[in-house]
C-alpha cells in the first residue's frame, strides 16, 4: 500500500499532465549577456547576431527599448545592431535567457551518397573555405574509400578532421591552413570539415555560437552543419560531437561570419557573461512549488537537497547493508559523506577523506604505544584531521579542484565524525579492519553520491514528495526480509559434513 499508492499518484500526475515533454531530459537554462565597452568618442556601429528558437533551444530577449538598437532578419540569422555616437566610456549590453536541450540525430544508413559535383561548383569558394582547391578535393576523394552511402562518408570526413591536433587560438584559420598545418582551433577544423563536405558535393555550412558555462568569457565556438534529408544536422569535429549536440551548446548563427563586427575608432572590448540558472522541468507537475517556496524564504537549496534526498540515500545504505552485506561507519554516515562531497566536489572530497584516513592510520599507532587515553587521543586525531583538511583544501582550491565558494562547515563536521569512527575502529580492531570498513563505507558512499548529487533526482522528489512514502514502504519491506545477504553466501560457502575434512 505504502509503496503502491505514492507511485500510482506520481504516475497519475505524470500521465494527466500535458505541459512538459520529458522531465528527465537534461535541459539547461542560462542567462547570457553580451557586453560591449567603447572607450573614446565618435560614431560607432556594432553588429552581432542573436540566437533564434529551434527544436532544441528557446531564447527570450530580456533587455528591451535600447536607443540605437535595431534588429532584422538576415537569411536564417537574426541580426542585431547598435549605432550611435560614443563619448568617453560607453557600455552596451543585451541579456538573453536561453533554454537549451541536447539533441541527437540518427542518420539513416540507407541514405545514398550521391555527391553532386554540381554543388561543389555551385557554391562559391571563399578565402577561408576553399573547397575547390586541389589539395582539399584530393583529400576529400581519398576519404571516400568507395562508399556509396552517406553515413560512412561523413564518418570518414569527421574522423579525419577530429584527429587533427587541437590548437587553442583565436586566430582565423582557413580550411587549407588547417590541412597544411595539421593543427587548428574550432573555426579552422569546422571550415575544413565544411570544405571537405562541399568538395564531395555534400551541402554543409559553418555555425557559430557559445558554449554555455557558468562563467564570463570572450571565446565563442564554431561548428558545422550538414543538410541530411532536408534537416541541418550538427557536427563538431573539435569537441567530438557527431550528429549530436550536448545541452550547453547555444547556436547563434549559421554561415561563416564573425559574432561581432564593429565600425568606429574607439578602443573596444567585449565579453559574454553567462550564468547558469536553476532549471526545473518537473515544475509543471508540482501541486505545491517547494522550489519557489524555499527561494522565497531564502532557504538554501542545499538544505532542501539534504532533507529530501536523505531518506533515499539512507535506503541505499540499507540495501547495501541488508541485501549485499557490506558494512559501513554508522548507518547514515555514507549519506552524510555523500552530501559533504556535493559541497566540496567529488574529487576533492574523496582526496580529503583518504588523506584523513591515512593520517589517522599513521598517528594512531604511536599514540597507542605511548598509552594515550582514548578521549584525549581522539582530540589529537581531530586536530590533525582539521589541520590537514585546511591545508589540503587550500592546496586543492589553488589547483582548481572544488568550488571556491564552498561551504566548508558541514564537510568538516562529517569529516571529523568519520575520523572519530575510524580512530575507534582502528583502536578496537586494528588499522587493517578499519581500512576495510573505510573502503566499504566509500563504496556505499559512491552510490549515495550518485543519488544525492543528481539534480534530476532533487527536482523529481521536490515535485513529487509523496514518493518519500514509497521509500518508507520499501524500507519496511526490507526490514522484514529474511533472505541471506549476498556476502553471507560466500561466508557459508564450504563443504558440508558429508565430506568432512579430517586431520592429516
Amino acid at each position: 500500500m505504502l509503496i503502491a499508492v505514492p507511485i500510482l499518484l506520481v504516475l497519475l500526475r505524470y500521465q494527466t499532465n500535458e505541459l512538459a515533454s520529458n522531465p528527465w531530459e537534461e535541459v539547461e537554462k542560462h542567462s547570457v549577456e553580451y557586453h560591449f565597452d567603447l572607450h573614446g568618442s565618435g560614431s560607432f556601429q556594432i553588429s552581432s547576431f542573436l540566437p533564434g528558437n529551434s527544436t532544441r533551444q528557446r531564447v527570450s530577449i530580456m533587455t528591451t527599448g535600447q536607443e540605437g538598437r535595431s534588429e532584422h532578419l538576415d537569411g536564417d540569422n537574426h541580426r542585431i545592431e547598435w549605432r550611435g555616437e560614443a563619448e568617453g566610456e560607453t557600455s552596451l549590453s543585451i541579456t538573453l535567457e536561453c533554454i537549451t536541450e541536447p539533441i541527437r540525430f540518427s542518420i539513416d544508413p540507407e541514405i545514398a551518397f550521391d555527391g553532386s559535383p554540381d554543388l561543389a561548383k555551385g557554391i562559391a569558394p571563399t578565402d577561408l573555405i576553399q573547397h575547390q582547391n586541389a589539395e582539399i578535393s584530393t583529400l576529400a576523394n581519398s576519404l571516400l574509400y568507395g562508399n556509396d552511402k552517406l553515413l560512412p562518408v561523413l564518418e570518414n570526413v569527421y574522423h579525419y578532421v577530429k584527429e587533427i591536433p587541437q590548437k587553442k587560438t583565436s586566430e582565423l584559420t582557413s580550411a587549407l591552413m588547417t590541412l597544411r598545418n595539421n593543427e587548428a582551433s574550432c573555426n579552422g577544423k569546422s571550415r575544413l570539415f565544411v570544405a571537405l563536405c562541399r568538395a564531395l558535393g555534400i551541402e554543409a555550412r559553418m555555425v557559430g555560437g557559445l558554449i554555455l558555462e557558468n562563467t564570463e568569457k570572450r571565446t565563442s565556438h564554431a561548428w558545422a552543419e550538414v543538410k541530411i534529408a532536408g534537416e541541418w544536422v550538427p557536427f563538431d569535429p573539435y569537441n567530438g560531437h557527431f550528429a549530436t549536440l550536448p545541452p550547453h551548446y547555444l547556436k547563434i548563427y549559421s554561415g561563416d561570419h564573425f559574432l561581432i563586427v564593429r565600425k568606429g575608432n574607439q578602443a573596444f572590448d567585449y565579453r559574454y557573461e553567462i550564468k547558469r540558472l536553476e532549471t526545473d522541468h518537473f515544475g509543471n507537475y508540482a501541486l505545491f512549488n517547494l522550489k519557489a517556496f524555499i527561494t522565497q524564504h531564502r532557504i538554501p537549496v542545499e538544505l532542501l537537497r539534504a532533507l529530501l534526498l536523505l531518506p533515499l540515500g539512507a535506503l541505499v545504505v540499507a540495501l547495501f547493508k541488508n541485501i549485499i552485506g557490506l558494512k559501513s561507519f554508522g548507518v547514515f554516515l555514507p549519506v552524510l559523506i555523500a552530501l559533504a562531497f556535493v559541497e566540496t566536489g567529488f574529487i576533492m572530497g574523496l582526496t580529503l577523506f583518504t588523506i584523513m584516513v591515512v593520517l589517522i592510520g599513521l598517528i594512531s599507532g604511536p599514540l597507542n604505544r605511548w598509552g594515550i587515553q582514548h578521549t584525549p587521543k581522539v582530540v589529537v586525531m581531530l586536530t590533525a584531521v582539521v589541520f590537514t583538511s585546511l591545508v589540503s583544501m587550500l592546496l586543492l582550491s589553488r589547483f582548481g579542484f572544488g568550488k571556491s565558494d564552498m561551504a566548508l562547515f558541514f564537510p568538516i563536521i562529517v569529516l571529523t565524525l568519520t575520523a572519530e569512527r575510524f580512530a575507534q575502529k582502528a583502536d578496537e580492531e586494528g588499522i587493517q579492519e578499519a581500512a576495510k570498513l573505510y573502503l566499504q563505507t566509500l563504496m556505499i558512499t559512491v552510490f549515495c553520491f550518485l543519488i544525492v548529487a543528481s539534480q534530476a533526482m532533487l527536482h523529481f522528489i521536490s515535485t513529487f514528495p509523496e514518493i518519500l512514502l514509497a521509500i518508507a514502504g520499501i524500507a519496511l519491506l526490507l526490514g522484514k526480509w529474511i533472505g541471506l545477504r549476498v556476502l553471507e553466501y560466500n561466508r557459508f560457502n564450504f563443504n558440508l559434513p558429508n565430506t568432512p575434512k579430517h586431520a592429516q
Partner: protein
Amino acid sequence: MLNKIKRIHRNFLGINQRNIDFIYPNNARQHYRLADDKVQSKELLQKHGIRTPATYGIIKSIGQIEQVWGRVRHHEKLVIKPASGRGGSGIMILKQENGIWFNAGKEISPDMIFSHIANTAFGLYSFADEDQVIIEQCIIPHQFFAKIYPTGVPDIRVITLHNSPVMAMLRLPTAQSGGKANLHQGGLGVGIDMDDGKRYLSNHPDSGSAILGKTLPHWNAIKEMAANTAKAFPLKYLGVDLVIDQQLGPEVIEVNVRPGLGIQMANRKGLKNILNTKNTAA
C-alpha cells in the same frame, strides 16, 4: 553454482533472519541490559546458583581505580573486563610474578594497567559512553585444554532457543588471538556434537595437537548449565559462554543476546532447520 546457492540458502541462517525470526520475537529489548552488562548478568547467575567466575572488584568510576586496585592486587592472577564489552575486546589477563605484572607474556606497568582500566571506564570497548570495569578471577583452564594449546582460556559457546541448547562450539585461543577465544579476534571455532560432546574438526593451527574424537570434560554439566542459564534469563534466544576451570569445573562467563553466526562454520552445519523446528514447536 545455482545448486550451491540453493544449498546455502536452505541450510544456513543469515543475519537478517536471525534478527527478524529469532532475536526480535524472543528477546525483548528491555532485557538486553541483563546480558549486555556483565555486572547485571553475573548477579542474575549468582541468584540462580549458576557458577560464574568470582568477582574481585567492580570499578564504577575513574576515581575508584586506585582504591579497588588496592583491594584486588594481592591476587596472583586476574582478569580485567569491561562490563559491557563486545566481541571480547578490552579483556586484559594479568599474572603476577614477584610483584611484577605480566600481560600476554609481556611485562606491564601499573600505569598502563590504570590507563587500560580508565579507557575501559570511558567506554572505549563498549556500546556506551562510559562503562563499569569488572576485575574477576582468572580461569585456569582444565588440563584437557593444556594438551591442545597451553596459553589462553578456551571457552564453549552454546546457542539456546527456548531454554534448550541447540548448537555448540569450542573456541580455542591461537597465537593470533592473544589468549582470547573470540572468533573475531582470531580464535579458532571447533564444532561440538551436541549428544556426546566430541569435536569434529582437525587440529589446532598453532600446536598441531589433534583434538578429533576426544570427549569434552563435563559435557553434560555444560549442557545443563547452559539450559539453566537460559531459564534464568528472560531472553529466549541466547549464546551462553562457558569456561571449564581446572578445579571449579564449568562456569558461565557471559551471555549474548546477538550470538554470531560463525558457529555454523565451526560445526559445518546450518542453524536454519534446527532453529525453525524449535521456534515453531515453542
